[in-house]
């Protein structure tokens, strides 16, 4: 860890004031963040991260400790700030899709849909039903992918090594599906404005069916390892509690909010991509502690499997892309004989399509919570502003509230339970 344990009163004042001119932070601002006891040396300031095995990336936490108890926690983010929103301003709408994969790299397809759905909303496009169903299948696989990595790393942090290896084993099955449809293991960019890149290749059904067959028993295996494990319960029950009102006020969404007993799921509240045609329930916890958030996510695995099963059964035939040639690229074989298609193709890849002036917000329920995309279009082929509403950012914001009064070892469990991805927090 880069820094040892400096307490603020020990730091020579001259050092801090000297750099103030260029740092535009005043000592007064920093003093407000900790209790006065930090200055008398009663409590200790401890730096955790950005290089720490259990901060899920490069999160930095400044902890004020009274012995082992956390008095206050000051998260410091931005170590993975990528400037994705700025880069979007220089890209056409279709060239922006690959950038969205890299926001929440554990759930690339949810990000794709939020962005693509927002552009479709601005263009008033109706996506073919087959494309919507395939999107639903892949979105639910993505949710399971995201939850598997969460479960593996969360358990690893608390000390259950084998769960991690099991989860990564099952995750490979989902990555195989990604690779089959999109050609890449992680960064798929499979959803396009107006539908999908291509129809699902042969072999897709078998792979998904295998997942549907294998997963229920594997989930039982995880449950056997953790659910009633006294050590697991000791580390999770009653830890990191956050109440209903607080969770809403902090803007928490997803399983972290539902663990506190609030029944809010974007798929139910504002259905997109024909989610209203599927039967599933939204698991809700009651205590708002680490254990309830864990239970919610584990139940979501079963619901995801249920949705995939329904979608696979009722998968309609038909096209997977809108037939509007101004937006959807023409098929390759058409270019060979149709002059018009050639022109469309050329225009789409050089200039891109224009989106009428306006603004829209489109949200999807990703594995972490409400992942939204806000686009302000200026009428040209490139957006004026693209902003992503990252669920992890708001969930992380509640961390100081959740961790107050906990032991320092619980910090690891709490950070794991809100399932943050720093790529999404910092964007």
């Amino acid at each position: 860890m880069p820094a040892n344990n400096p307490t603020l009163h020990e730091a020579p004042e001259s050092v801090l004031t000297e750099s103030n001119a260029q740092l535009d932070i005043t000592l007064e601002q920093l003093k407000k963040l900790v209790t006065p006891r930090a200055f008398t040396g009663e409590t200790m300031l401890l730096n955790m991260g950005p290089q720490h095995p259990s901060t899920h990336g490069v999160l930095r936490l400044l902890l004020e400790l009274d012995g082992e108890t956390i008095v206050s926690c000051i998260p410091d983010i931005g170590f993975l700030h990528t400037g994705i929103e700025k880069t979007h301003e220089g890209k056409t709408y279709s060239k922006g899709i690959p950038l969205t994969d890299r926001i929440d790299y554990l759930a690339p397809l949810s990000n794709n849909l939020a962005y693509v759905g927002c552009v479709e909303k601005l263009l008033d496009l109706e996506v073919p039903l087959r494309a919507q169903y395939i999107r639903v299948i892949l979105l639910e696989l993505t949710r399971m992918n995201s939850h598997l990595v969460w479960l593996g790393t969360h358990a690893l942090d608390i000390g259950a090594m084998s769960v991690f290896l099991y989860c990564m084993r099952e995750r490979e099955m989902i990555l195989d599906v990604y690779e089959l449809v999109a050609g890449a293991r992680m960064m798929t960019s499979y959803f396009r404005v107006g539908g999908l890149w291509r129809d699902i290749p042969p072999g897709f059904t078998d792979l998904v069916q295998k997942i549907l067959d294998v997963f229920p028993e594997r989930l039982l295996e995880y449950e056997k390892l953790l659910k009633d494990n006294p050590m697991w319960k000791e580390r999770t029950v009653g830890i990191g509690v956050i109440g209903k009102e607080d969770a809403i006020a902090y803007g928490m969404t997803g399983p972290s909010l539902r663990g506190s007993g609030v029944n809010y799921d974007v798929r139910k509240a504002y259905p997109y991509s024909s989610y209203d045609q599927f039967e599933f329930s939204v698991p809700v916890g009651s205590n708002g502690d680490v254990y309830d958030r864990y239970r919610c996510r584990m139940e979501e695995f079963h619901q995801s499997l249920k949705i995939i099963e329904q979608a696979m059964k009722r998968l309609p035939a038909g096209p997977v892309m809108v037939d509007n040639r101004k937006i959807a690229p023409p098929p390759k074989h058409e270019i060979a004989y149709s002059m018009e298609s050639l022109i469309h193709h050329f225009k789409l890849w050089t200039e891109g399509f224009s989106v009428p002036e306006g603004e829209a917000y489109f949200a999807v329920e990703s594995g972490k919570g409400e992942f939204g995309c806000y686009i302000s279009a200026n009428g040209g082929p490139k957006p004026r502003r693209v902003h992503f509403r990252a669920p992890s950012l708001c969930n992380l914001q509640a961390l100081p509230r959740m961790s107050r009064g906990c032991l320092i070892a619980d910090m690891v469990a709490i950070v794991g339970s809100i399932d943050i991805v720093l790529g999404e927090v910092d964007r």
Partner: protein
Amino acid sequence: MPDTLVSLPDFSGIVADLGDAVIETVVAHGEVTLVTTRERLIEALTYLRNQARFEMLVDETCVDYFPQEPRFAIVYQLNSLSRTMRLRVKVFLSEHDKTIPSACAVYLSANWLEREIYDLFGVTFEGHPDLRRILMPAGYEGHPLLKEVPVTVEEVAFSFNRRRIDADKPYARE
């Protein structure tokens, strides 16, 4: 998308209650946007949270409308869990006076979102409890998401300019 076709909930009551705090109502793509002023913003947000039951501030961001004037818009996305409604509130800001009252007192989640806007756009939030940079390093100068900052920083390398770019690159030493 199908959800744009869903009939909109009735917003006329809210607009009537807010009175002249709303200077414009825009309905587009199945979404309602209320444009309010900087002076009446906190009053409007407080009403929307307490009376109209928009419990959650989902998102807050800033748009740079350069070269239009007023140049900046702060955009609030509100969500009502109990009524299942979304609402967008917008405030326009002039380039010459980039200050706006902070919404932290009304919505707790505004804290980091406003710090992000301050960091990336340089908009100052009055009454914010902890207005520091959040994403960029503390010594960074300027506000990167303003339109005058270029999108790319490094020239794209082709075979004709590859050597020159490589020669200018500051490589690290042991």
